[in-house]
């Protein structure tokens, strides 16, 4: 019996859905406007793709969702949890209080219960000072009934998370096991302020993730689909619902990641630049050995400086709905404003009154949508100039993302990719694969399962090679437990952090593996 999977990706303008068979052939695709509440758009796309596919609903076994719910909640400052945060860092760290530099409107919501307690570790894993457990218990008791989600952050927890774990235990003992707990070591790297910010944001969107997951499962049921649900995370792999509710912040920016992974699959390329042209922006990412290149810099989420891993994306304010303004002197400007999914109402070639980038390509005969008659009056020489500028903007951005002066392969995907020519400066080939319009949803559907193991090993006991082998097999076991097929698991990331001044050449090893669903 054939097994099918649904992939859904929520973009700024459109929500896309696909159904794939076991060999990843696209059986059906659907594109709906992204709704203000995000969920309606998802349900519409879901309904439509199931209806058009005609497949037996009982054969749909997996459903993967890449959504912007969490990002939106942070940006809109809505639907956030009642959060308290405990920083384990005194007597160090007092010179910078938590959430400094966070915009005031957000701070008012997530900064109501902020505590700093004694504890934390040195860079080499030594304890700075012991935990004062009684103080922590008192704080927990004072928070009962006031908050439903806790962020726990300890100095140098990426080296030793002993204090974060112990404080989490105390929280559960004092406040019950229902309370959500976010531990910073699972979220970010060294850099206390940024990691703390990310952890508090994570704690604030736990409910959003929970409701999103529940309503998605519910919506599937209403369609008669009983599928295992996964969420896309921003490194291009999947998370179980349970894990998503714990670490919802990892869903942020999964959209561009899905596009990159989808483009990789559709074009059969492992290394390329992926250009995803949407309605409002064009996102350019780097596909490196089949996965998106990660950003090495601090990233801003809703005005908050954080340091959790994110795909390295350059977002250019140029998409299919981007508005072009003509000036009296023959000059023009392109964007960054966009008509978004109202293109088919407001664009000139669709009977509207706004000149957009899509109208330009229609008028020049480069795309056969809309009504070319409606844009026939435009000055052709001017249009050529606008088109050249659009192409130049993209070529500049491509160049900025390249890792060397050598020409690279460029994969063009997304509904707006009709905007651009198939010859671009800096590209040795430009691929526009089949199903380019829903590459993101395909990326969501074909995502792999990942698992991570992080542990301190004494390298002297087994030697480096055998230690890493051991860590790898532990990660494999985890991945298989999470639903991966053992036979095609591969290591996607290894990090070794030597801990100085500890006996036995102690090294923290973090190893991440990914593979297809079993």
């Amino acid at each position, binding site marked *: 019996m054939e097994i099918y999977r649904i992939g859904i990706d929520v973009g700024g303008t459109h929500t896309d859905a696909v159904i794939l068979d076991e060999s990843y052939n696209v059986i059906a695709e659907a594109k709906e406007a992204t709704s203000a509440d995000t969920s309606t758009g998802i349900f519409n796309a879901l309904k439509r793709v199931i209806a058009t596919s005609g497949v037996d609903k009982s054969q749909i076994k997996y459903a993967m969702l890449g959504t912007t719910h969490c990002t939106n909640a942070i940006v809109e400052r809505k639907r956030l949890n009642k959060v308290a945060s405990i920083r384990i*860092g005194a007597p160090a760290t*007092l*010179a910078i209080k938590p959430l400094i530099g966070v915009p005031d409107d957000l701070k008012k919501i997530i900064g109501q219960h902020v505590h700093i307690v004694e504890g934390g570790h040195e860079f080499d894993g030594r304890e700075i000072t012991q935990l004062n457990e009684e103080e922590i218990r008192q704080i927990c008791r004072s928070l009962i009934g006031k908050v439903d989600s806790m962020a726990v952050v300890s100095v140098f927890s990426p080296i030793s998370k002993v204090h974060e774990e112990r404080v989490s235990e105390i929280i559960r003992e004092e406040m019950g096991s229902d309370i959500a707990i976010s531990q910073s070591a699972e979220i970010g790297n060294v*850099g*206390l*302020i940024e990691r703390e910010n990310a952890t508090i944001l994570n704690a604030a969107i736990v409910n959003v993730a929970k409701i999103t997951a529940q309503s998605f499962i519910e919506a599937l049921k209403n369609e008669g689909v009983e599928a295992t649900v996964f969420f896309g995370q921003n490194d291009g792999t999947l998370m179980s619902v349970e894990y998503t509710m714990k670490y919802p912040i990892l869903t942020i920016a999964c959209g561009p990641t899905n596009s990159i992974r989808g483009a990789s699959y559709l074009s059969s390329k492992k290394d390329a630049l992926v250009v995803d042209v949407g309605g409002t922006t064009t996102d350019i990412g780097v596909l490196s050995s089949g996965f998106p290149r990660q950003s090495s810099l601090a990233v801003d989420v809703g005005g908050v400086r954080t340091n959790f891993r994110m795909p390295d994306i350059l977002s250019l304010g140029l998409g299919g709905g981007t508005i072009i303004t003509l000036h009296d002197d023959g000059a023009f400007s392109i964007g960054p404003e966009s008509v978004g999914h109202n293109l088919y109402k407001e664009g000139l070639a669709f009977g509207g009154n706004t000149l957009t980038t899509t109208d330009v390509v229609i008028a020049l005969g480069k795309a056969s949508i809309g009504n070319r008659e409606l844009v026939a009056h435009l000055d052709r020489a001017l249009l050529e100039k606008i088109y050249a500028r659009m192409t130049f903007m993209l070529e500049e951005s491509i*160049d900025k993302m390249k890792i060397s002066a050598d020409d690279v392969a460029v994969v063009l995907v997304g509904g707006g990719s009709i905007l651009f020519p198939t010859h671009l400066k800096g590209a040795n080939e430009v691929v526009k694969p089949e199903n380019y319009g829903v590459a993101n949803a395909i990326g969501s559907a074909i995502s792999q399962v990942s698992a991570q193991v992080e542990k301190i090993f004494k390298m002297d006991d087994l030697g480096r090679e055998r230690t890493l082998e051991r860590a790898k097999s532990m990660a494999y076991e985890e991945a298989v437990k999470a639903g991966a097929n053992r036979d095609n698991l591969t290591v996607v990331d290894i990090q070794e952090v030597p801990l100085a*001044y500890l006996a036995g050449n102690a090294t923290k090893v973090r190893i991440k593996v990914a593979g297809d669903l079993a």
Partner: protein
Amino acid sequence: MRLLGKEEIENIAIGAALLGTGGGGDPYIGKLMALQAIEEHGPIKLISIDEVPDGALIVPSAMMGAPTVMVEKIPNGEEAEDAFKALEDYMGQEIYATMPIEAGGVNSLLPLALAAKLGLPVVDADGMGRAFPELQMVTFYLDGISASPMVLADEKGNNIVMNTINNKWAERIARSATIDMGGSVMLAIYPMTKEQVKESAILNSLTLEEQIGAVVRKAKENEANPIDEVLTLLGGFELFKGKISDIDRVTKDGFARGQAKVQGVDAYSDQECTLHFQNEHLLATKGQETLCVTPDLIAVLDTDTALPITTEGIRYGARCTVIGIPAHEKWRTIKGLETVGPQYFGYDVPYVEVEKLQEKKVL
């Protein structure tokens, strides 16, 4: 005397990053500490050296250790205060004012946080006019001023009063103590009289940092070219413009060493510039030609925003403009060049002033 508020701190942070020449640690943490201290204790008094009473004691404040430790184990704000108290006790003299030891990176902001907390004035001066990695690389050292007595203090409440026979020993002992104390400590160091500071320090450097920040931010508002404005302000030279095409770095002996290649654009197309760095950018070359070399300042700026790119933050494809700025005269002496010249850092090129190198280019 004038007061430094939050706006001034934002400007100083930009200037400090630029004069940090790629190293010195990201001023971000120091900036946040200064902003919080101002919020709690009010604005900071900035004074010129002439406003200091004769014979008064001035003590620079600085952090020592790994900036990567400090971004995780943030200070509590008491360390520098403890260090100052311990030094006052030891010397039996009250400290009148503090000042930064360097005009680049995190250390140019940290004394401001301390000053706000203690209500001490800050003298508008520093000991480098830029950033350098070692304790003896200050203009005070050139004039034979001792780093001792000095105090190291950590957040746990430990402090060490040190007396050393010379400043290289101070560097050596302090560095190993720093590791035991947790990788990042605050120092009270180079205690000096007003007269010594006036003679040996580089004056008005905080004001200069603030001006750099102000022109960069203003240029953005006025849509002027911020790099041109910075060059005019500092009497600097545009050395090269392009994009980073290759980077090769290794961490050795606690220093991030390496080289980056810049592929030229515009007037520099078909040319390539190589940046050599050890925490800071120390040498810029084009083929066999030296464009600028330490102690003259090499700053790598984002071509669009003029914001400095650190040696850690350099990445492929970054559009940058490399500028050279003449170092303070004190560094161009024989002893100055022995201390921070190209040979000290292991580069086999002679020191030639950046303005002379540029003159040659014009001819």
